């Protein structure tokens, strides 16, 4: 428990080693070794710490490393407080779980990317691992941070690493643009977050989570009014929206797919994007005191989930489908927190991390096999060539769809159950989204692994037509591609491990209805409630459905999931021609949708035409309003920048130069008087004398 500060430090050291020395001296193997060792060490330490935590009676441990910002006097709502921020890490159930997730999945992804990135040139390879380790360092700092400022350090750090990793193949303009877009949008989120931090300090006089929670617990719940705490929650939520890609700040996530697949897996599926949920969870006490905000969070979560899912239906690029599914699942998590089921949200976060990482890595190996081909329409019947990837991705798909034995079912069902208790409308939306999730995941599976092979021929033909991404910019694709093949051991092993995780992870949160102890909930409970109000808050459940009703609900959701899968099966396996026909019918919409999502016409038989039009509506909203707005502000700033530059150059400078010119022009008038004729000057003097004398006379005699 004492060494928790070492957990983030190890990857930090790994990153430093790779960064400073690696880029020039390390070979590929040593760099990979350093990176994976660092991650392994962190994983071990987190496991040890986690076990200690389970053992410990009081499930919380604060380690203050050093005084980062020493205390300086500052006025707060309650008189003169001291603004200080120590480097302090806190281990409690929530952060314990998170470090496990981060280090666990992180290490697996490290191993996976050793193989995945091997045909990168040495410099790029080392740089990649350095960035990956740096990312884990920041993520762990974020998770373990005991006060808002240290969390903010991690928060921005991950933003930086996502920028670096998305823009890893910087020679591609689209990659660097995506990176920049991601960072700027995150920054907009951070803008809200930092203001939130200041408001927290101003109201509570401290930034430490535990202290804030205790102070907040004492304050009245702002029922119906939008008080200070609601404002704090709103600002913090803006940060979360930015980071976890909820409406409206989710636009960067689909573009973030430009980065290498392990990056997408680690950052844009498992860890970084969940930071928002973690932050909301960490400040659960604040949010519980602002029911208005809880509702907003829930609504946004639900809407994002639905919207992302509809767009996911149409995508043909395998990674974009997963990206939209991530956004959708995050929507679920926020929905859970919104309805007060913080534990469920966290539980879903953990399970999602497993199966989403699994799916991404699976898609990575598929892309790897198909020589960087990401378009599902050019795949098909991959199960013949890649049995292991097919099996693991199958498990992942079943998990995410929410099929009973797998983890996805338990966590998603818990969220659906708690949403049903709180707000039936949201529950409806959630269920529909769950159905869509099942559908598009199944579609993905069927298009890639079933049906006949639609990919390009190989063997003597040499280099297949370039995939969507010109892979490995520096080293041109050296060896010729000879057909899809199963990925090497180093890639399939992490897949199998994750698949196992996806299956097992569910069992720690089996709901009471199914006879499970729902241990995860009780485990995480203490970190969501303020210390003092431990006892009273804990078991409180307003409406407690009978077990039978709960089972009914579960059955319904499973039924819907199976329906989704069956629908996908009918469309993409038994009668693949039907999907082409559908695409032809709605050519216009289809073409529009395929840009961002596709029409699920069969789904329409159960009268979901509303979803179809809402999908298209959302798409236009998405394309014109949201993206439009972002680009618009870009253009606007450039225009106003140009104007201020012009004003600066001509108006302010103009005045200065004008004074100079006036003097020179004025002087010409007087120069003409200098005729050079000496006698003229004599006449001038004489005139002077004359004037003087007349003046004298005037004064003397007439004055």
């Amino acid at each position, binding site marked *: 428990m004492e060494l928790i500060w070492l957990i983030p430090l190890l990857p930090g050291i790994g990153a430093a080693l790779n960064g400073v020395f690696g880029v020039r001296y390390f070979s590929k193997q040593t760099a990979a070794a350093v990176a994976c060792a660092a991650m392994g060490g962190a994983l071990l330490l987190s496991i040890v710490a986690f076990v200690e935590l389970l053992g410990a009676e009081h499930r919380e441990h604060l380690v203050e490393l050093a005084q980062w910002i020493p205390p300086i006097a500052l006025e707060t709502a309650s008189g003169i407080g001291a603004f200080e921020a120590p480097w302090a890490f806190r281990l409690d159930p929530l952060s314990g779980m998170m470090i496990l997730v981060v280090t666990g999945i992180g290490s697996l992804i490290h191993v996976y990317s050793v193989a995945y990135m091997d045909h990168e040139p040495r410099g790029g390879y080392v740089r990649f691992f350095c960035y990956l380790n740096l990312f884990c360092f920041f993520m762990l700092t974020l998770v373990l941070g005991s006060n808002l400022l240290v969390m903010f350090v991690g928060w921005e750090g991950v933003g930086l690493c996502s920028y670096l990793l998305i823009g890893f193949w910087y020679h591609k303009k689209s990659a660097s643009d995506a990176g920049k877009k991601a960072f700027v949008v995150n920054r907009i989120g951070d803008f809200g977050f930092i203001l939130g931090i200041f408001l927290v300090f101003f109201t509570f006089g401290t930034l430490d989570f535990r202290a804030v929670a205790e102070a907040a617990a004492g304050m009245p719940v702002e029922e119906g009014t939008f008080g200070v705490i609601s404002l704090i929650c709103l600002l913090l939520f803006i940060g979360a929206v930015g980071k976890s890609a909820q409406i409206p700040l989710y636009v960067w996530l689909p573009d973030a797919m430009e980065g290498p697949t392990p990056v997408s897996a680690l950052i844009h599926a498992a860890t970084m994007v969940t930071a928002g949920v973690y932050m909301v969870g960490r400040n659960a006490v604040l949010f519980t005191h602002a029911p208005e905000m809880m509702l907003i969070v829930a609504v946004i979560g639900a809407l994002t989930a639905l919207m992302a899912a509809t767009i996911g239906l149409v995508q043909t690029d395998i990674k974009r489908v997963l990206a939209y599914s991530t956004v959708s699942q995050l929507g679920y998590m926020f929905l859970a927190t919104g309805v007060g089921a913080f534990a469920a949200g966290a539980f879903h976060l953990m399970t999602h991390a497993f199966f989403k990482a699994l799916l991404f890595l699976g898609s990575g190996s598929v892309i790897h096999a198909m020589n960087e081909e990401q378009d599902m329409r050019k795949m098909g019947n991959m199960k013949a060539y890649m049995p292991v990837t097919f099996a693991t991705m199958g498990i992942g798909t079943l998990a995410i769809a929410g099929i009973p034995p797998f983890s996805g079912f338990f966590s998603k069902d818990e969220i659906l159950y708690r949403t049903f208790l709180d707000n039936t409308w949201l529950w409806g939306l959630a269920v529909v989204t769950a159905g869509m999730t099942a559908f598009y995941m199944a579609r993905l599976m069927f298009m890639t692994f079933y049906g006949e092979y639609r990919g390009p021929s190989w063997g003597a033909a040499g280099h297949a037509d370039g995939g969507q991404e010109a892979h490995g910019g520096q080293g041109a694709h050296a060896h010729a591609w000879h057909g899809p093949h199963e990925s090497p051991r180093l890639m399939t092993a992490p897949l199998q491990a994750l698949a196992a995780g996806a299956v097992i992870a569910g069992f720690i949160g089996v709901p009471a209805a199914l006879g499970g102890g729902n241990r995860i909930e009780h485990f995480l409970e203490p970190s969501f409630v303020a210390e003092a109000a431990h006892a009273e808050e804990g078991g409180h459940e307003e409406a407690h459905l009978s077990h039978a009703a709960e089972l009914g609900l579960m059955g319904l959701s499973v039924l819907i999931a199976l329906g989704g899968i069956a629908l996908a099966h009918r469309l993409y396996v038994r009668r693949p021609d039907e999907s082409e026909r559908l695409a032809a019918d709605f050519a216009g919409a289809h073409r529009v949708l395929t840009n961002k999502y596709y029409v699920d016409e069969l789904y329409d038989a159960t009268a979901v035409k509303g979803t179809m039009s809402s999908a298209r509506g959302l798409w236009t909203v998405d394309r014109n309003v949201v993206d439009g707005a972002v680009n618009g502000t870009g253009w606007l700033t450039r225009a106003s920048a140009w104007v201020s530059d012009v004003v600066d150059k001509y108006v302010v400078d103009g005045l200065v130069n004008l004074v100079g010119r006036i003097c020179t022009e004025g002087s010409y008038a007087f120069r003409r008087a200098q005729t050079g004729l000496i*006698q*003229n000057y004599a006449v001038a003097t*004489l005139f002077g004398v*004359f004037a003087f*004398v007349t003046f004298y006379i005037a004064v003397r005699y007439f004055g």
Partner: protein
Amino acid sequence: MAEAIAFYTLAVLILGLGVAVVTTPKTVHSVLFLVLNFLCVAILYVVLRAEFLAVIQVLVYAGGIVVLYLFVVMLVNLKRAPEAHEDPRRLARLGLGLSGAVLLELAGIVVYSYGRAAPSSAPAAPVEGIVGNTEELGWLLYTDYLIPFEVASVLLLVAMVGAIVLARRES
């Protein structure tokens, strides 16, 4: 009475010669008129009981300076008439008018003020004979005005050197 006659004749002579100096086209003639003018002025000094000055006037002015002018006139023998080219922007007319006006005004003032103030006539007994004008002047010059005298001598020295340097042909 004699003095009045002398004054008026000399005045007319001096003014006439002055006008002659200024108006004659030929330079040498105007130099001669200048000499005569200086001589008349010398005589006027004698009338005014300033013999030493009269002699100095003749010796320095007529004897020295005008000779210098003559020399220069001769050295500067022009190919073309000196006053051929006239610059249109000259204000000669204005000059003429202004100087005339100034003269009138001064004369006016003098006449007006002298008219009113008691006319200080010439001192009755011409102080002369015993202590010569030269001796008095000498005393005054070498006692009260010694420094200006020395300064004047330095000035003359400088003028000599200046004139030599200026007029010397670059060897």
